[in-house]
């Protein structure tokens, strides 16, 4: 049996994996920064601002990630921003992920008893200092387990970028299978997609264990 096909396939999947990791990293950064900022605004005393936060979170969580991705991909060129599929993917996944992370942050902040904040304010701490020194350190413990869970969700979602033409690990697998099918009788699709599944599992399973551990360990 000829095994010569394996070398190039693994090399190509490796390049795809790097793209997957890069997209995951960038969209995690965008989603974390925007998500924590938006989630913190939910504690604002201004009802209008809270309503905007609520709307942002509800809206983005009620729409499929893939639709947001396609929308950003097709919309950016129309408003004059000619970016590649990779940038569009990062913006789309980042926006979608930020809503999930904002919800986790909001939930964590609201799980802290209001007396904590009131006591800090009564002691003369500014609203900003109350948030920074009293609410956030406590909320962080409750935020971390769902946040780690969201990381796996975003890493999974990075596979969607293959739909808009990014050569991530799934896109690379598809290209190799098409090539093998063109060249010979056997495309080895089961084995190649099996490798992709194994790679995602190897990344995400430890993360879910970490999330479980964090949940037990950081219980307030």
């Amino acid at each position: 049996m000829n095994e010569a096909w394996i070398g190039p396939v693994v090399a190509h999947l490796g390049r795809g994996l790097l793209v997957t990791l890069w997209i995951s990293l960038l969209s995690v950064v965008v989603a974390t920064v925007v998500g924590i900022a938006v989630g913190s605004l939910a504690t604002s005393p201004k009802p209008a601002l809270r309503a905007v936060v609520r709307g942002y979170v509800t809206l983005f969580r009620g729409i499929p990630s893939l639709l947001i991705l396609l929308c950003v991909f097709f919309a950016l060129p129309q408003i004059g921003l000619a970016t590649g599929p990779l940038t569009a993917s990062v913006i789309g996944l980042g926006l979608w992920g930020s809503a999930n992370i904002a919800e986790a942050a909001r939930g964590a902040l609201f799980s802290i008893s209001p007396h904590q904040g009131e006591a800090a304010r009564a002691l003369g701490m500014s609203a900003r200092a109350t948030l920074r020194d009293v609410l956030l350190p406590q909320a962080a413990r409750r935020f971390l387990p769902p946040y780690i869970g969201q990381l796996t969700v975003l890493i999974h979602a990075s596979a969607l970028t293959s739909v808009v033409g990014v050569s991530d690990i799934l896109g690379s697998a598809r290209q190799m299978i098409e090539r093998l099918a063109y060249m010979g009788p056997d495309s080895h699709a089961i084995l190649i997609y099996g490798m992709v599944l194994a790679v995602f599992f190897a990344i995400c399973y430890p993360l879910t264990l970490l999330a479980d551990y964090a949940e037990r360990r950081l219980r307030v």
Partner: protein
Amino acid sequence: MGETLLDDLPALLNGLGNSLLVSAIGITVSVVLGIALGAARNAGVPVLSQAIAVYVNVFRCTPLLVQIFMLYFALPEIGIRLSPFQTSWIALALWGAAYHTEIFRAGFKAVPPAEILAARALGMPARRTFLDVTLPLGLRATIPAATTMAIGQFRSSSFMVVVGYQELTYVANGLVSQTFRVFEIFGMAALMYFLTCTLIGAASRGFETWLRVPGTRTAR
């Protein structure tokens, strides 16, 4: 493909109908599977319990999109040919069942042990105890989490665009590539997803209130 959004509405609604169809089948199958597997996990049936844990971890730690590729593009290699429709509901069912198993397992575990002990002390066999005590109490407690997952499954039906199933995202994507009216068409599709998710959520909350046993709390 028409000049205005009104002309595209029938096609989009038809897509929404197809999305709802595969989601309904996929969600029903996954909930039934989830209850059965969750019960087996909760009962700690040897071997079976470990096998279910492996299934749950494999499907939860790999992206749904790669699972879809495996079902649709790789299985024909071993002679299993699924239509886009079959792929869509089977993928949603297998992926969702992994999450539902964990949800129902947690729900069954959360039933107060005193209730089960009392039933057993009254002479009820283990099977009756499960069917008449653990199941009704456990299922009520899982309604919010199971609904969140079901809504997630409905949103993920958009992934079936990759196998060419005529669901809402596929239809919207097709219309956009023909007309380039990105914002109108994707906006309308997003609104349809959003409203459907909101309706499912509201219906579930109504159902939960209607079923509530006085004096019990619902666990989230």
